[in-house]
Structure formats: C-alpha cells, structure tokens
C-alpha cells in the first residue's frame, strides 16, 4: 500500500476516533477513562513490539523511560506551569537518558540484555526513592494544572496515530531493513558495512521515546504517581502480554492485544479487586502457555493463504 494512501486512511480514522466521542459523549463518560488507559498501555506495547520486531531484543526496562517521563512532566509543570515546555523537556530528558543507557546496553545480547535493561530500571526506582524534593515513596503530583479529559483523549488519539505512522515508516524504511539485517545476521551485516551499534542505538532510542510518550500521557491523565508505580516492571510485562495476545512482529498486533487485555483485566479486576496481582499473574501464565502466534499473525496468515489459493490451484492444474 502506498504511503499517501495509508496517511489518508489514518487521517480519516483519527478524525473519526477523536471527534466522534468528543462530540457525542459526556466528559464524565467511562469511555474516556478506558480510552486513556488503553492509550498509554497501547503506546508502551508498541514500544516493546517495535524493539522486538526490529532487533529481537526482549526489554524488561521500558518502565525506566516511562517513569522518567512521568516524573519529568510533573516536575516541569510544577516549575514552569507550561504544558508545552514540560512535554518538550520530558522528551528531551528521556532521549538523553535513552542515549546514555543504550550506549551501554548495546554491549549486551540475549538474556543479558533483558536483565541489564531491567536492572537499569530497578536502579532508577531506588534512586527516585531517595531524590530529595520528589516525594520519595509518598509520591509526586501536579496539582496546578487541569486538562479536560476530552482534550486529553484527542491528544492521545493523535499521539497514537502519529506513533503508528512513524513506526510503519521506520519499520519498512531503510532503518527497518538495516536493523532486521542486524537482528538476523549481525556478523554478516557488520561485514557488509552496516554500522551495527548505530542501528541498535537509533531503534532503542525510538522505542524508549514511545515509552516516554506513554509516560507523559499517563501523568497528564492520572496527575499523581510514586516510584513504585512509575518504575514498576509491570509496564514492561503488560507490554509483552499485549504484544503476545495481539501478535508479535505485527504493527497492528498491539492494537488488538491491548483491547483484549484491557477487557479481560478490567473485567476480572472489577469482580475481584483485591486479587489484582494474582489475576495479572494468572493472565500472564495463561497467555504464555497458550501462545501460538497472536491474533494478528493468525489473521495475516489466513489472508495470505486466501491470496495464495488461486496460485496453488494453477500449480495443481499445471
């Protein structure tokens, strides 16, 4: 499909998704709450899936960038009372942090990378607990700013669509092909002259910035956090669950997986609120054991099979 055609579809979908509920629904509607939760879960899942698809790296440290963006947004809003400055500063800090961490992390591969990424996030959690002026374990909030939920919802839709478009272009462009070359045949890619560390750093930074975007939306919506929530490993785990349900290595997988996960999780939690951690564990075990290929991978295969059927018939006749 041509890029212009995809963009026109996306503009239409964005307008429909953003303006429909904005006009038709009341601000107190539960739809906006679930849409916001879906929004930041989806973004963090896109972040994980993008990194895994292009590099094969399994990250357990996305909460580092999520949490950093959460705190940076709150801090700069409280300092400047200016949303634009806070968002820009939050992105900048996350990007710099990502660059610094990625330079060290690309030395690791496989399980070492997974544990290394997690340890960076755990370290940040412990540091954040001890940073003076950030509330420690009591948490930190933004009492000064009020953003109507409807406007936040529209911003969230736009952010998701733009992220989708960016990952589509980056996955199917030169960067995507190069990174996948590094993923499958690193030694060969190096001999062919590809700058392997650079490819890895770029993909890692993009992935981390998507996680940071999720963190910004989270803070603007929830307005209060603490280190145990912002830097919780659960953000990375939820990203993996969503990707596994929807289909790893597919761009639309997180969208479908996010919706399925949200429905299951919120419904079961509604029924048994006090068993939250147990239920999350059960969901993880269930989808880990039941994993085959994910919903979107299955759909893609079915579509491909249909397309190939005439060819098969022709080859039989021949």
């Amino acid at each position, binding site marked *: 499909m041509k890029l212009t055609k995809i963009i026109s579809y996306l503009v239409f979908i964005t307008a429909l998704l953003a303006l429909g509920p904005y006009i038709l629904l009341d601000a107190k509607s539960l739809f906006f709450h679930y849409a916001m939760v879906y929004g930041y879960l989806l973004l963090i899942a896109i972040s994980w899936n993008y990194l895994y698809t292009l590099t094969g790296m399994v990250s357990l440290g996305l909460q580092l960038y999520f949490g950093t963006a959460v705190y940076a947004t709150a801090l700069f809003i409280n300092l400047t009372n200016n949303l634009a400055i806070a968002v820009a500063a939050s992105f900048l800090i996350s990007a710099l942090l990502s660059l610094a961490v990625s330079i060290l992390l690309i030395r690791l591969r496989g399980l070492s990378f997974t544990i290394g990424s997690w340890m960076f996030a755990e370290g940040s959690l412990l540091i954040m607990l*001890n940073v003076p002026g950030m509330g420690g374990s009591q948490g930190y909030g933004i009492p000064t700013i009020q953003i109507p939920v409807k406007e936040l919802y529209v911003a969230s839709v736009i952010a998701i669509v733009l992220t989708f478009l960016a990952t589509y272009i980056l996955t199917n462009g030169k960067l995507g092909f190069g990174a996948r070359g590094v993923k499958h045949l690193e030694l060969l890619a190096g001999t062919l002259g590809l700058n392997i560390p650079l490819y890895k750093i770029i993909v890692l930074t993009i992935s981390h910035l998507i996680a940071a975007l999720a963190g910004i939306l989270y803070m603007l919506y929830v307005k209060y956090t603490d280190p145990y929530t912002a830097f919780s490993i659960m953000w990375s785990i939820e990203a993996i669950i969503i990707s596994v349900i929807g289909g790893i290595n597919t761009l639309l997988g997180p969208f479908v997986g996010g919706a399925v996960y949200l429905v299951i999780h919120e419904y079961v939690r509604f029924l048994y609120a006090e068993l939250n951690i147990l239920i999350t564990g059960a969901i993880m075990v269930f989808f880990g054991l039941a994993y085959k290929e994910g919903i979107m991978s299955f759909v893609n295969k079915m579509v491909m099979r249909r397309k190939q059927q005439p060819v098969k018939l022709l080859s039989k006749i021949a």
Partner: protein
Amino acid sequence: MLDLISQLIVNSLMLSGLYTIITIGLSLIFVLMGILDFTHGIKILLAGYISFWLISWGSHPALALAISVGVMTLIGSALYAGPVKRVSDIHFTTLLVTLGISYIIEGLVSIYQPPQTIIIAKSVTGLTVPLSIDIAGLKFSTALVETFVFSLSIIVLFQLLLKRTMFGITLRALVEDKETTSLMGVNPSTRLLLSIAIVSAISGVAGFFYMRSFGGTIGDWTLILGKAFALTLFVGKTTNLQALFLMALILAFTENIIGTLISISVKDIAAVIVIILSLIFKYREV
C-alpha cells in the same frame, strides 16, 4: 579504620555464602536449560515464609527448615515438569510464564500474610542464642554465622556432588555436549529433573537463612532475583562455584561498604550498579 575494614570483610564473607546458595539453583537451571527462571526469587522467599509460619505455629526451627526444603523440592520439580518445560523453547514466553507464576505465588501469600517485614528470630538449633558474639574485637551476628556455616556446607557438598559423583560427571557432560551425552546412554530428562529437585531443595535452605539473616517481605523477590541473575550471567554457562562465590563476595562487600559509609538506604543502589557494571564489562554471550 582497620577494625571497620576487617568487620566489613568478615560481614561480606558471611553474606557471600548466602548469595552463592541463593544463586546456585538459578545458575544450574540456566546452564542446563538455557533459561533464566523468574520463579527462583519467589521460591526462595516462599521457603522463608513457610519456615516462618511453621516456627510461629510452634514448630522446631530445624523441622521447619526440613519441611520447607521438602516443599520447595516438590514445588520446584512440579513447576519444571509442568509449565516451565513446556515453554522453555521461546525466550519471552518463558519469561511471561515464570514471572506470572511468581505473581500468583506473591498474590497467594499476600492473602494470608499482611505486607509487613517478617524475620526468623530463632536459631536453627532451637537454642536461645545472643544476637551477636565478639571474637578478637570483631562482632559476629549469630544469624549470619549460622547462615555462613550452612551455606558453606552446601557449597562444599554441591561441589563434591558435581566433581566426585557419577551424577555430577554426567551432569557436567550434559552441559558440555547434550547430544553426545544422550548417545552415551544418559537420559537428560531424568538428570534434569533430579538436578531441579536438588537445586530447589537448596533454594529452600537459602529461603530459611535469608529470612534468618535479613527478614523481608514477599515483594523482595525481585531484588533477590536481580542479584541472582547478575551473578549467574557473570559466571556464564559454567558450573564454576568458585567464580560464583568470588562475585558474590564482591557484591556483598560493595553493599556493606556503601551501607556503612554512606547510608543503608542506598546500599541497594550500589548493588544494582555493581550488577549493571558486571554485566556490561564482564560480558559473555548467552
């Protein structure tokens, strides 16, 4: 100053024994199956909780230790033979399932036990012992001394098992070359199950002595797991217990020195920094 350094070295040495037995199980599963078992941390804490509950219900500490070792052997073997073995081929599904099991156990324990720090205050001998003893101007925590004696015994026994018994030799052969060893008539599945049972039992002991030395809450499993992961990855795919002990000593010494000289609240940050640095600068492809 010299007294302080001596004290730090002694404390670190004692702690490194505990860190080594905490890591042995994870390390052996990693070596044999090529997976990082995320249930390892929660299994250790569960063993500590089982011991704590049994003691609080009036059981003798040694009996509580024996029961928790037995329970952990059963749980460890059942988890391996069931879900873990089934998903061990794919990296992220292993991660998802083992982490999920950890959360289920954490959730189940939290239903019964309120989220507060617990500690095993009684000596494993059942006798009333002082909190610490002074020898040559150095202070020895009795809990740490007990922990060290048991840890060292286990390390020595495990080393003997690996080096001197036919079981250990076939196990090491499996690590070197699984296919050839299988062709020589060794059944990898049986050996693996037996090793999992042994290391799960060691986790049971580690859990008891973790709760005896430090105490903690069920949520501490992530930090225990982080330390065990780092030590495992640092040593790599070998059964080298000396290297494991040495790295555990470095980790314990860093924690102790930061905890003493700066603040106890930042000692875990120092541990995480050591873990990250050890991973990055002593990298082995796994």
